[in-house]
Structures are given as structure tokens and as C-alpha cells.
């Protein structure tokens, strides 16, 4: 049976909002509104195919990159080797040298394009230094470029579920236009998921649009995730403005406790100690004062990390002379590396026609279980966005002109269907708080143990049973938030189930009951499943690489974190 376009709503109905459904067709559909999505859309359009991009928020303000500034892992070629080995070492032998190198190279080659599109990089000795960006300006330039090359952008249009053809390949997506009170469906021959990681609505800067929707959509369609134990990255911010998660200014901080006792500056042997702040905060309130910043330092960090100084200025605080309480905000898989498992150089997933890019994808090849951080993630978005965009365009061409005539069904399974009018409803706010109560506390997610993980998984299972019931769908907002609740619970379960099954401490995955890194556990852990969770060890077969002997002056992190 061939389903005509006008019959599609009967196949995938969300109660009353499909009446005025917007129905569109494209060769490639990109889901997301940050840099990875923008680069994917641009790259696909460059292959001569029709591209539609749909974003939950606004392409230009959505996501972690737009709302700040970022370093970019784009060293000049004479430093490629040094950065390559620095990244490899940080990954504790889990990253792939080949992938790090191709990300650096692709990023380096791409940034002159951004300049040609109108972004003004700073200059040194007359040469552009393309190693960081001001987020709002970068995304403004990318948006303008997409419109110029004919990409159709649907803002304020969260995608909710993928469409699948009968052979299991992806055939588009469905969602809601939250400011127009209607559903939309985009039929396409390929889809790129570039809708970010998951920070569990922690308000980490720009991250509340990153609620793991892509991971849920991918798993429901038959995809897999990987390295989801790397989902507990925390970042420092002030407590009054527990959102601007920018660590660089705190390099020059001194810390004190409530009573004013000196806690030091968080360094061991000249290196920042990642355990310092979590351990101090587990004992009680911690205050920071940026009193080690010299005038030279101040001049640099105020122009690179302006977003960190805006809250101080508004609150009338001088951070150099006043003690300010600080906290750690969970950034989940946004700066952690877990995400949709990509299976080849084109960023394909296990689902034919479905591609993943940016923070939605696992960054294990780049960072193992260590933080992708700002700089590497920015480069990852630029490079994987383009690979996924080209991969999707080629796949779309191979499907051909009749792809939109395929019989399709909607793949969404949780937090969506309104099967019976007498449905049980769940309280979205309670679900979100329930997830956050398991994911936010340092005691649970930073100091992981079997006992605590099992306890949290039991509580998350209860929440899962709730989002498995039929949600209230009185408004388009209900549909969006119930689906978001489902994604948050799902991502929390995959994170903790993966953490439970990796019985060692490695990079940011800290198990207090297995405090050592086990050299025999050199694998990426795949995971997935909805009601029944599973993990699989994908053993690394490449031998551990050893760096050539060269001058090993440590490279400071490119990340702004």
C-alpha cells in the first residue's frame, strides 16, 4: 500500500493538532539549531540537494555554542602533532588518532569559509587567527549563509520522532510548531540528527535546549548509543548565576570556605586538580575570588570570556576583590562524550539514512571518556556536521526521486501516543525534578558506586513507567514537554546503566568502588534499549599508540572550559 501524503496524518496522529499539519518534502532533513546542524545543512546543500532544517528554538540562539564564546581545536599545521598527542593522552588510550587528525584537518580547512561568509576573526601581524569565536556572531553568520544557499529553516519547531520506511531506513521526521499550534511532517530521504547532547535542564549556559531528544529518536528508530557513562561532566559557575559555565577566569581564583579559611587555588604540581572543587563542595559552601589575575590576565579574559563578566557587572560584583559563592553545574553529555553511536567516516548510524553530528553523536573517537570540552567539541561540530551532511546527501540521491512515496510509519514510542481518551496523565514537572534528583548531586553522579547507581536506576525505572503511560496532550506545549520528559528519563537510564556496567574509573567516569583504571578495559561501551536496557563492549583493536619522541612541552587546553 502506498500512503499518499494526505493520508499520512492517519498513520501518525497526535490527537487534534494534525488537522492543520504542515507537510513538506526535502532530500535531507537536518534536526537541530547549533553549529553541527548548520554545518550539516550547508554541506548537504552544497551537494545540490534540497535541505530543510528544523530546530526546537531558533537557529542562531539555540544550543551551547550560540550562547557564549568558544575556543576551536584548530591549531595551525605546525602544531597539529602536538595537539593530536595531547588529545590522545587525555583520552587514556581510547581515542582514535586517525579521527583526531581528520577532525583537526577538516576544521582547519573549514574556518576560512566562515571568514569568507562574513565572520571577522581577530588578527595578529596581519594574519587572521581562526581559533575561537564569539558564539552569537558565529551563529548569525551561519544562519545568514544557510538562507543564502537556499536551506529552508523552521524555527521553534521541535522534532519529536523519526519516520521509518518499511525497509527500516529513515524517511523523515515529525514534530510540532510550538508557536503555530500545529504539527509538521517533513518527508525526506535522509536525516541528520544534530540536536545536541543532554544537560538535564540544568541551565548550564545555552544547554536547556539540549535534552537528549536526538538520542531517544535514534534508539526508537533502531540506532545505538555509545560511551554514555561519559555523561557526568560538571562545570564551575557562580552560585547566584548558576548558568555561565566558563572555567577559564577561575584559573586565577583563590578559594575559601564559609568561614573564610583558605582552600588554596585548586592546583597540584602546577596543574589544575579536577577533584578539588567537587571534593570541596561536598564538604560545604565554597567561595572564589579572582585575585590572582594580573592586569594582563584581566585584559585577555574579559575580551574572550565576556559572558562570564556580564553577570558580575549586572549584579554589581567585583570578582577580583569580592568572594563569590561558586557551584558545579551538570553539563551531562554536552561536555561529556556520550551520544549516538556513529559507525563510519560519514557519521552514519545503524539506521540506514540516519546520520549523527555534533554533541548528539558520541565523541569517543576524539576524547574517549574525557570531556570533549569547548574547543574539541567546536571542531567536532564543524567536521562531523559536514561529513554527516555529505553522507546524508549522497544517501538521499541513492534513494531517488520516489523516496517520498514510500510507506512510512512514525517511530516514536514514549511520551507521545494518545491511544485512549481515558489516558493516565503524568506530571512533567515531577518527572523532570525526579530525573534531576538522581543526576545533579555530586554524591550520586560524580562519586558513582554500584549501590548508588542501582538505587538511582530503580527510581528512574519508576519514572520510566510513568512516562510510558499516555501523556496529557491538551496543548502543543504538552506534547513537547511530555516528549522531553521521556527523553530525559531515557538518557538518565542509559547513562547510569552504562556507568553501572563499566567497573573501573576512567577519565570522568569515577567509580568509588573501582578506583583504578583497568588497562584491560579498552573498549567503547555501546548501549540502547527502551524498556529493556542493554550494554555491549566494542573492543578497540587498534594497538595503543605511542607518541614519537619530540619536545613535549605541555599544550594548554584549547577548550575555554
Amino acid at each position: 500500500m502506498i500512503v499518499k501524503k494526505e493520508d499520512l496524518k492517519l498513520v501518525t496522529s497526535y490527537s487534534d493538532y494534525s488537522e492543520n499539519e504542515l507537510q513538506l518534502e526535502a532530500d535531507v532533513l537536518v534536526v537541530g539549531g547549533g553549529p553541527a546542524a548548520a554545518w550539516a545543512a550547508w554541506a548537504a546543500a552544497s551537494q545540490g540537494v534540497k535541505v530543510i532544517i528544523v530546530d526546537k528554538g531558533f537557529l542562531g540562539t539555540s544550543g551551547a555554542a550560540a550562547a557564549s564564546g568558544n575556543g576551536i581545536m584548530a591549531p595551525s599545521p605546525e602544531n597539529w602533532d602536538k595537539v593530536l598527542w595531547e588529545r590522545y593522552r587525555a583520552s587514556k588510550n581510547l581515542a582514535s588518532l586517525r579521527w583526531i587528525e581528520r577532525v583537526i584537518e577538516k576544521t582547519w580547512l573549514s574556518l576560512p569559509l566562515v571568514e569568507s561568509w562574513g565572520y571577522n576573526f581577530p588578527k595578529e601581524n596581519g594574519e587572521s587567527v581562526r581559533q575561537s569565536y564569539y558564539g552569537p556572531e558565529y551563529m548569525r553568520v551561519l544562519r545568514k549563509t544557510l538562507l543564502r544557499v537556499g536551506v529552508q529553516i523552521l524555527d521553534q519547531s521541535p522534532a519529536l520522532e523519526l519516520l521509518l520506511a518499511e525497509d527500516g531506513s529513515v524517511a523523515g521526521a515529525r514534530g510540532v510548531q510550538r508557536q503555530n499550534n500545529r504539527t509538521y511532517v517533513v518527508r525526506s530521504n535522509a536525516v541528520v540528527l544534530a540536536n545536541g547532547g543532554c544537560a538535564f535542564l540544568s541551565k548550564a549556559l545555552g544547554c536547556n535546549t539540549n535534552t537528549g531528544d536526538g538520542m531517544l529518536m535514534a534508539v526508537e528508530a533502531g540506532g545505538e548509543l555509545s560511551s554514555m557513562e561519559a555523561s557526568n561532566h560538571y562545570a564551575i559557575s557562580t552560585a547566584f548565576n548558576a548558568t555561565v559555565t566558563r572555567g577559564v577566569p577561575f584559573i586565577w581564583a583563590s578559594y575559601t570556605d564559609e568561614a573564610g579559611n583558605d582552600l588554596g587555588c585548586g592546583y597540584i604540581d602546577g596543574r589544575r586538580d579536577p577533584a578539588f572543587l567537587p571534593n570541596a563542595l561536598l564538604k560545604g559552601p565554597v567561595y572564589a575570588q579572582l585575585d590572582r589575575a594580573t592586569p594582563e590576565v584581566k585584559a585577555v579574559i574579559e575580551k574572550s570570556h565576556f559572558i562570564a563578566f556580564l553577570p558580575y557587572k549586572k549584579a554589581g560584583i567585583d570578582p577580583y576583590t569580592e568572594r563569590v559563592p561558586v557551584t558545579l553545574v551538570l553539563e551531562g553529555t554536552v561536555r561529556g562524550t556520550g551520544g549516538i553511536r556513529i559507525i563510519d567516516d560519514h557519521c552514519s548510524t545503524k539506521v540506514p539514512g540516519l546520520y549523527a553530528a555534533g554533541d548528539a553523536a558520541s565523541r569517543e573517537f576524539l576524547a574517549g571518556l574525557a570531556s570533549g570540552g569547548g574547543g574539541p567539541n567546536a571542531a567536532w561540530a564543524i567536521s562531523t556536521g559536514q561529513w554527516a551532511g555529505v553522507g546524508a546527501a549522497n544517501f538521499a540521491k541513492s534513494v531517488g526521486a520516489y523516496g517520498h512515496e514510500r510507506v512510512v510509519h512514525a517511530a516514536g514510542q514514549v511520551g507521545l501516543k494518545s491511544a485512549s481518551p481515558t489516558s493516565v496523565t503524568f506530571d512533567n514537572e515531577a518527572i523532570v525534578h525526579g530525573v534531576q534528583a538522581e543526576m545533579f548531586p555530586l554524591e550520586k553522579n560524580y562519586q558513582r558506586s554500584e549501590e548508588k547507581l542501582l538505587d538511582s536506576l530503580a527510581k528512574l525505572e519508576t519514572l520510566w513507567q510513568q512516562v510510558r503511560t499516555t501523556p496529557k496532550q491538551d496543548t502543543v506545549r504538552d506534547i513537547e514537554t511530555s516528549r522531553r520528559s521521556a527523553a530525559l528519563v531515557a538518557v538518565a537510564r542509559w547513562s547510569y546503566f552504562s556507568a553501572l556496567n563499566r567497573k573501573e574509573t576512567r577519565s570522568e567516569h569515577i567509580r568509588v568502588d573501582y578506583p583504578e583504571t583497568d588497562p584491560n578495559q579498552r573498549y567503547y561501551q555501546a548501549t540502547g534499549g527502551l524498556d529493556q536496557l542493554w550494554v555491549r563492549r566494542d573492543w578497540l583493536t587498534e594497538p595503543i599508540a605511542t607518541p614519537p619522541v619530540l619536545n613535549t612541552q605541555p599544550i594548554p587546553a584549547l577548550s575555554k572550559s
Partner: protein
Amino acid sequence: MIELVSHKLCINCNLCVQVCPTNVFDAVPNQPPAIARQEDCQTCFMCEAYCPVDALYVAPESHTNVAINEDDLIASGIMGEYRRILGWGYGRKSNSELDTAHKIRQLPRPK
């Protein structure tokens, strides 16, 4: 969180409704937009960056409401601060050229 859409300054262009990534505002016919879902505000300041007339104020407090006074805020000159930092707006030039991030690695670290 967003605390103010200044009726004294707003020109009802509804750009903030369009650009807010978490859909906090609702357009109101012939009036400034309403802060309809303040609890969804993530304090990213992006609406301030886009507002062409500096009519919005996002307080730095991310998790608590604070009392603000519209006249005091306007008089203080803080309105539109993010837009000035970025160099956005009529007669301005983007400040992205002033980015110093690449110099951080060369800075002296504290001992």
C-alpha cells in the same frame, strides 16, 4: 532570568518571541510581548543581544526572582549591555575581532 520587557522602550517587533531558544515570550497584539513562561528562561541573555532597542533585561540570577525597577535600570545604562559587548546594532561593528581567546595559552598561570 528575564525580568523586564520595558513598555517604555519596546517597539512591538516581537523579535524576542522569534529568537528565544526556550520560547519564553508570547506575542500580544499591538503590545509588547509578554513574559509568558519565565520558568523556562535559561538566562542565556540571547534575547538582550537581539533586541534592537535595548528593551529587555535578563537579571543575572538564574534560579531566583529578583525585584527590578524599570526606571532605575534604564537610568543605570545597563540595558543593552550584551548587545554593546557584541558590537551589534545600528552604527556598530561586530566586536568578534577583539576576541582574545587565542592569547589565553600565553598568559602566566598562577603559581
